[in-house]
């Protein structure tokens, strides 16, 4: 088991942790969830039949773990909040402080991160997988068990949604000229 863990860690840990963080937007939760992913993977590893690539299999498990967590969070809040599910998730995640990696970034980057929460869960998954994780359309489709066409459509809608929210944010003129960092 140790050998398998070592290899998976070396090849995928950074990517898996990053994926989970950008899905749940909370470092401590991402730490718990990445552990959960390894536990599921290691328990099932002997039966992994290679129908999909190891990479997309791992992302697929991570995605399920993240969605389970998000659903539990929304259930946790539903008795106390009158908002709908997406709104309650947003409220919850708004309470989390920005990670230090983001605190030092320019306002435009922070705004973008903040506006991502306005996207639907499907849209967020596609944004994270396609742009932050740099997965191809085909890999993203495998992870999400979608058609490639659906990935493209969702990606397009996600960018459109982000643009709608970002256009409402004032004061980015100078930063955009400067670059993105």
């Amino acid at each position: 088991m140790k050998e398998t863990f070592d290899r998976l860690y070396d090849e995928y840990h950074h990517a898996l942790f990053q994926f989970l963080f950008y899905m749940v937007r909370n470092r401590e939760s991402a730490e718990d969830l990445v552990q959960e992913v390894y536990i599921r993977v290691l328990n099932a590893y002997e039966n992994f039949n290679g129908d999909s690539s190891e990479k997309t299999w791992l992302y697929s498990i991570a995605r399920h773990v993240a969605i389970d967590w998000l659903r539990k969070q929304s259930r946790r809040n539903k008795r106390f909040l009158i908002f709908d599910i997406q709104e309650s998730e947003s409220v919850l995640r708004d309470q989390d402080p920005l990670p230090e990696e983001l605190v030092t970034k320019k306002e435009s980057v922070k705004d973008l991160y903040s506006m991502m929460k306005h996207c639907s869960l499907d849209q967020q998954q596609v944004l994270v997988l396609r742009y932050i994780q740099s997965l191809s359309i085909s890999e993203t489709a495998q992870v999400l068990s979608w058609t490639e066409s659906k990935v493209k459509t969702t990606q397009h809608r996600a960018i459109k949604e982000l643009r709608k929210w970002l256009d409402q944010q004032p004061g980015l003129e100078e930063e955009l000229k400067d670059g993105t960092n």
Partner: protein
Amino acid sequence: MEQIKWNDEKIEQHLKNLPPIKDKRSKQELYLNIQANVDKNKKVNKIPVWGLPALATACALVLFGVFVPDLMPKEMQENKVAIDVDKESKGMDAASTASDESVSLKAENKVVPAAYHSPIQESSLDSIGIDQDWVTVGYLDEQAQLVVPVSFVTETDHYVNKVNEQIKKFDPLAAGLSGSPLQRATITEEEETVIIDWPAGSIYESEEPLLKNLIALTFSNENQKDRVEFRTNGKAGYDFSNYGVVKDWDLKVPGAPHYRFDTESTDVFIVSLFSTGRKASDLPKELDDALDVMDEEQERGLKPFLPKDLQLEVKKTGEHSVEITFPDSFKLSAENFEDLMMIDAILLTAKSYDFNSVKFTNTGLDSIGPYQLNEPIEGITGQNVFNYQ
């Protein structure tokens, strides 16, 4: 000052430049945490009998069949018990019957289930190393007075795809249910919204009072979807007899006490008061209030799983965890199948109130059915699980 507008390229570039977030723990620290849990899970997986709830139910029925004659009063055995063995397979539900024969024991009006459909634990979906998932579909009982949610273990897929697949596959009549209005629909999804398209005149007036609850129990039992949109042959809205044209509903499944429902086919289901069409405002707001009424018979043929006047003590131990203590005067019996069903009903009720971890105390037992009672029971999911042969 004219504000610069974002464009698609800038957004994409910014997304690619979001900073990497790193796990601050060391590899070794992480491995130690994981190792402990993997070993623990493997240990649990070694328990040979209760790996799958399906198998658990079958075994429980076998046990029950063995012990029932000894448990019944002698005169009941002699005078009032009729044992019917129906060798015609129902063509379904391997989990719920001990063999190809479906057996029902009738003692006066009390019917021992031929097929009891237990809930499922999330851990059992992962225990055999195959990526499994589940789905729940709401069906109406024969009188169309109750929504009976039926769950199926499936391959991983989009939730709506799984619903569509099971609607085609499952024969509700074989389980004593009448069907589902969803069987007449074209069901698709857009993001968190499910879209139901019926041809005009598809919904009977008698089905309408339960329709919202049926749709919620199907699509929002774990908050999968939060809204339904109706269409008629592709056009927005559906014209209901009682409600007029409705374009959409918000979906939510509230916490509710759970009861026993027996069908004519002697299948036994666990359903909540929400299944009777009640609104959230008409249901108990807290778990202890719900447990308090679970020893009472309810409308529409719902029977209690809890013995009359059983006082359970409820202590919240965490945001999603609760400890339920049985009174000294009551002890569970591992051989009593009704006790196992009672535990299932309490777990489902607790889950509906957002308690995913339940620790039972003062039960007098270490385990019952698939549950280890000396540790919290977690991850109850699905309801009335059917497994195909």
